[in-house]
């Protein structure tokens, strides 16, 4: 797959979808089509035809989402707007402009306005105004271009189009093609009863829908109300305490809303409106979806507290709106049935929310074990709000709990080829080894790029656990196999053992 940021949109570019283990083109840009690529082709075939072809993975869900958003926008023309469902999911927008066209002058002018605006969005679009959804769908895709057709012209315009313009299932379309009914006109000319008995109701239904003989209403897309609560205050608030009270009230209302919808808040946005029209915004995030009003209020209150010095209260705030821009589905959780005990709260998430919001999420991290023999790669830190902590830690007595940030070179006296250190000097202090165990040999991860060069990680390490005569225990390694990888191996201090 190509890197999206490096894509050259003028050069051949295709989107691909994976079907049963093979990748096929789902869309081509103009340049790719010019190279003879076609939708449905295998990526490997396409690559062979067009070396250097840019390939991105198709994202049908995102496309559908974008079309839904566009549908929401299109309500400026009519409230009856819906994403159009074609053969392969959502692939366009239906607008029922009955009774709305005159607001824009005429159907023609509405169409022109719509296309102009879409063009300004950089969206290439084709649209048709006809009497039926089916005819519009067909003509917008298979017709000559964007147009307005009157009732009489529709049937005529539809007749030469291929039957696939009728939104038929593949099976039906294939069956019709096999008996030679390839165009809508062919289909319309055939006696209905024999057709229905052979191909079922679908073909006739779609034909009738396109020709306006059967009704097909637009089911408008219902937009979900945003998660938002607001509060206007009788007197402008000038004191932080009062504001906190207001926040608590908002959060309590929000908790009800969230529970109703079964969502947990992952981000909060509080907008405060000052009497003179200025606004202030507080934003906080959480590590996992939550509905707990007290917790949410505390996060906001703490943020308010942090900002208090910057916050110019002026003549006070007279209104506040709480928005939840991001949510998670709420998973049911087990309630402790014994009433007298407070449920044990081993859950760190409320603490992490507070710490994360206060210090920044980059500073609150989980440490995860990674399956790597190389010690410094065996753990990985990740921002805490990305996922839950790992409980998958192996018992690890033979390794230090923490490593030095960087292995430090030491001078060592040791027996060749692979004897343990006898004495070593670390940070200018000499140590005499009284006990040693090893070597534990760890070879480089040869598949990584850095093991190719002669840099760090390109050589085998021999780790030793050593104890000096003072009872201090160190974890030391020699880098480079004697005689095989290096003539003079180097030694490093990597950590301390209990």
């Amino acid at each position: 797959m190509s890197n999206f940021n490096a894509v050259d949109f003028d050069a051949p570019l295709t989107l691909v979808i994976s079907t049963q283990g093979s990748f096929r083109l789902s869309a081509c840009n103009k340049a790719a089509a010019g190279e003879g690529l076609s939708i449905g082709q295998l990526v490997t075939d396409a690559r062979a035809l067009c070396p250097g072809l840019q390939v991105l993975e198709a994202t049908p869900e995102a496309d559908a989402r974008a079309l839904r958003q566009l549908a929401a926008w299109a309500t400026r023309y009519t409230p009856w707007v819906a994403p159009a469902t074609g053969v392969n999911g959502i692939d366009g927008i239906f607008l029922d402009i009955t009774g709305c066209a005159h607001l824009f002058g005429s159907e023609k002018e509405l169409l022109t306005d719509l296309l102009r605006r879409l063009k300004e969005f950089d969206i290439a679009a084709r649209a048709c105004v006809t009497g039926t959804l089916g005819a519009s769908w067909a003509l917008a895709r298979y017709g000559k271009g964007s147009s307005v057709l009157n009732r009489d012209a529709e049937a005529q315009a539809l007749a030469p189009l291929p039957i696939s313009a009728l939104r038929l299932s593949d099976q039906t379309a294939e069956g019709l093609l096999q008996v030679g009914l390839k165009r809508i006109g062919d289909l319309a000319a055939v006696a209905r009863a024999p057709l229905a008995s052979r191909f079922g109701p679908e073909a006739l239904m779609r034909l009738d829908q396109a020709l306006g003989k059967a009704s097909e209403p637009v089911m408008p897309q219902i937009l979900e109300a945003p998660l938002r609560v607001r509060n206007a205050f009788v007197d402008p608030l000038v004191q932080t305490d009062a504001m906190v009270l207001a926040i608590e009230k908002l959060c309590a209302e929000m908790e009800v809303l969230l529970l109703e919808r079964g969502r947990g808040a992952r981000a909060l946005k509080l907008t405060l409106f000052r009497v003179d029209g200025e606004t202030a915004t507080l934003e906080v995030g959480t590590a996992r979806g939550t509905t707990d009003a007290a917790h949410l209020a505390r996060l906001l209150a703490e943020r308010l507290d942090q900002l208090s010095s910057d916050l110019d209260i002026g003549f006070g705030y007279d209104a506040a709106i709480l928005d939840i821009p991001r949510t998670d589905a709420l998973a049911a959780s087990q309630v402790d049935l014994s009433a007298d005990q407070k449920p044990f709260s081993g859950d760190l998430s409320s603490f992490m929310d507070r710490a994360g919001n206060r210090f920044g999420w980059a500073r609150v991290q989980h440490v995860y074990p990674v399956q790597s023999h190389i010690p410094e790669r065996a753990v990985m830190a990740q921002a805490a709000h990305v996922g839950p902590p790992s409980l998958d830690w192996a018992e690890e007595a033979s390794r230090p709990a923490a490593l030095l940030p960087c292995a430090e070179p030491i001078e060592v006296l040791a027996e060749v080829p692979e004897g343990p250190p006898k004495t070593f000097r670390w940070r200018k202090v000499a140590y005499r080894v009284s006990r040693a165990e090893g070597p534990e040999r760890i070879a480089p991860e040869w598949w990584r790029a850095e093991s190719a060069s002669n840099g760090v990680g390109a050589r085998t390490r021999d780790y030793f656990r050593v104890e000096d005569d003072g009872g201090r225990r160190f974890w030391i390694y020699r880098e480079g196999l004697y005689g095989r990888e290096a003539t003079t191996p180097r030694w490093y201090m990597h950590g301390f053992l209990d």
Partner: protein
Amino acid sequence: MFAELCTMSNFSFLRGASHPDEMVITAAALGYSAVGIADRNTLAGVVRAHVAAKDAGIKLLVGSRLVTRAGFEIICYPQDRIAYGRLTKLLTKGNRRAPKGECHIDLEDVLEHSAGQVFIAMAPMMASLVLEEGFANHLARLAKACPDQTYLAQSFTYGRNDTKRLWELERLAARTRVPCVATNDVTYHAPGRRTLADVLTSIREHVPVAQAGFLLAANGERHLKPPAEMTRLFKDRTRALLRTEEIAARINFSLDELAYEYPDETREGYPTPQHALEALTEAGMQRRYPTGVPDRIKAAIKHELELVAGLNYAPYFLTVHDIVRFARSQNILCQGRGSAANSAVCYCLGITAVDPAQIDLLFERFVSAERNEPPDIDVDFEHERREEVIQYIYARYGRHRASIAATVITYRSRSAIREVGKAMGLSIDMVDALSRTTWGWSSGGIIADHVREIGLDPEDRNLALALELTREIIGFPRHLSQHVGGFVITESDLDTVIPIGNAAMPDRTFVEWDKDDLDALGILKIDVLALGMLTAIAKTFELLENHYDLPLELATVPVEDNDVYDMICLADTIGVFQIESRAQMSMLPRLKPRCFYDLVIEVAIVRPGPIQGDMVHPYLRRRDGTEEVIFPSKALETVLGKTLGIPLFQEQAMKIAIVAAGFTPAESDRLRRAMATFRKVGIIHEFNTKLVEGMVSNGYERDFAERCFKQIEGFGEYGFPESHAASFALLTYISCWIKHHYPDVFLCAMLNSQPLGFYAPAQLVRDAREHGVEVLPVDANLSNWDCSLEPSDGGSHAGPRAFAVRLGFRQIKGFRAEAGEMLTAARGSSFDSVRDLWLRTGLGKGALETLAHADAFRTLGLDRREALWAVRALGTEPLPLFRSAASVGAEEEVKLPTMPLGEHVVHDYARLRLSLKAHPMEFLRENFRREGHVTCADLKTIRAGRRIKLAGLVLVRQRPGTAKGVIFATLEDETGTANVIIWAKTFETFRKIVLGSKLLAVRGQVQREGIVIHVVSDHLEDRTGDMSQLTDEDRPRAMPRSRDFH
């Protein structure tokens, strides 16, 4: 001072990362006193190790690493032949009760077979300090049951707690009274194989290397280490170290001891097999030569029988005779070939139909007293009926005495890049694209230029690593499979010789060794092979008898028919056996075969051996009389006499090594074997020097010597001896004879034996029609499952009783044989409508639709659209039980759009792989003519050297390994076919087009050699898209793919 006892080769699939011979050779080079090979529950790799150990002069311990179902691992070495038999019995037991590829054994089984074995228990690899309880218990049980036979392996893993681990093991050893033994628990022969070992692990675990984590070993220490290094590691444990040699000394078993007992084969009424053989030969001789046996044959038989007696091979001949006799009794056509098959004795016994009077083969060349090499007779059977013969062998000898040999399936370029690519984290489409850059079954790996061509960068480190590892893994065994037909038969229980395992097919078992292994140990095998052409010939014999009243068998087809040779000389040989390929067809007019032995040469000459040895042209020149027939030496005159002084057959090349280069017969045989396995580069080089220098010092020209070697090299993978060529040539002659005299019968039988041969049904049909055979379409009322002969009225074939070929239902893609049977069983006189057919046959709508798509309702007056329309209506009518006259026929008439002829043709191709209506190119001709393209027929009259444009369907693409990357493509248009040559350089430029097009337009120069015309193309264009003009649809229909060969 040190012997490594615990090694795993790559026959421990996806665990060991070295070939057994690499292991053994390295051990010898490091100076080990002995080495043991013990693969997981198998002995599959030991013969290779055994051969290598004999060469390298190191003692080999043959054993197996027994892994019980509980996960207890013990290495087991039998101390003598009897103990070895117990081990093979144990493994057989484990194999037979497990699914293919697995072996289920428990400690109880091991104890049951423990007498005479040496056991080395292998502690599990783990970081934990406390040894696993289960292991300790198992060890204690084993030690108690087999004291003095059990050892415990100790090794330095360079893991976290080596010292403690070793100490734990010593404590356990003391507790169970088991001595410790030093090892490095080796899985690869050299440190460099660590990467491959990691890749194998990730292939095994189905996870990319980068994500395999702790599944991979932390380090790469499990290789063979110099004894000094082992001594240093075990300096505090010298007893354990010395014990390795003690154990090696205890084991006195070598695979050479497997004195192979051939089945007794005594026949009732005869004191010895030899007597029986002589009597059978005598009887056969009278049958073969009813008019009197020629003296020459008498003498040959006497001589051969003496040789057979001297080597005690009579039982082997009797076995083959018995199998052939069975086949004959069941009317299964068969034909022997191979070293001993074309002897006078075998002719008399009916094993072969090649009359020794017709061809003069020296028996000694194949069965020789001095080499003590087993005779080799392969018998080909009709491929559709071979299973009956196999079951007969099982029934006769019992499963405990007869089994099929193994075939070791190894990684080839494609499988290697697929699995390594996945392991290296390449995306599926990338791996796909890479694997497509290789041709067929290549073993050459992936070429950087091809990588670049599919838009990838071969310099990319990860990709480069993947390609390198791909090259390394090629040749590694992946799994064992059953050989196509090599049977091993023994007198006593086979499972005391070789472990036997289940095959994927039900009711099949196979031994763990492949034919080279068996060969190396001198174990006899009989190849019961399947040959499609025999099926076709058997079918022609049946048709000839039924329709022409002409009973024939292989030996009674009229010989040396001049008309047949005329046809062969014109290269009019589409569909016949062996001489139908492009290369063969262009050779025929030059070689001009006029007698049987010419055919033998023709069959053998277009092979990698003679071509690589550059022997073809000198032979042709000498045959044409433009070059003098001289022999390199007096000594070689006897060897090369029949082939005008040019070595063409494998036996001749081997004989040259003996006569001219001073090889011993055994050496020459080793040379042949070394060639068969492409991997042994080092050994081959050694032989090269020996052969060439040997010949030069004996006064031969260096150039000739080197060509001889190249030829032997070429024989390696596709060895083609004269004896095989003779048997094949007979089938070639017979198929030509039938094709010439009964082209209708020939076509019918060929179509009924598909898939077979070089050409698709479309070309066979086309060729037959050009020879005047009338071919009739598939029809629901007239066809049977098989193609059949019908009295012809419109054919122009010369013969008075010629028939027309009615295509059968088998020609329809996706139509099942059972459906065909149901249809013909219910048909009676005929069906009067689609509905009638449906009601009477009970066929599903799917099957009817398939028939409609195939346009098989024409006698009902329906074309494919109308038929489909009718079929579609069927399900909606009342059930048969309730049907009444009133409910039928009330439907409105519907006039469907007519299907253009071009579209019919396209559909014919899609459903039947051929069309009798027209050729697709006819519909495009107007366009192509306007662009200046000539037709294939035009080529005949165009003078050589002219540049032309030509377009046609791609029938065949071929890239012979011997032709230095040249592609031969065959194009077909409505007038005929044309041969296109694409030089390697042009191919590289137009690679995609050459490999991808179905309709190809070429520009190039006409070349002519006698009657052979080629177009040497320097520009190609993919015109597959033009095909959409044939239909009024917007999308292209599937056209048949070309057949690609390498």
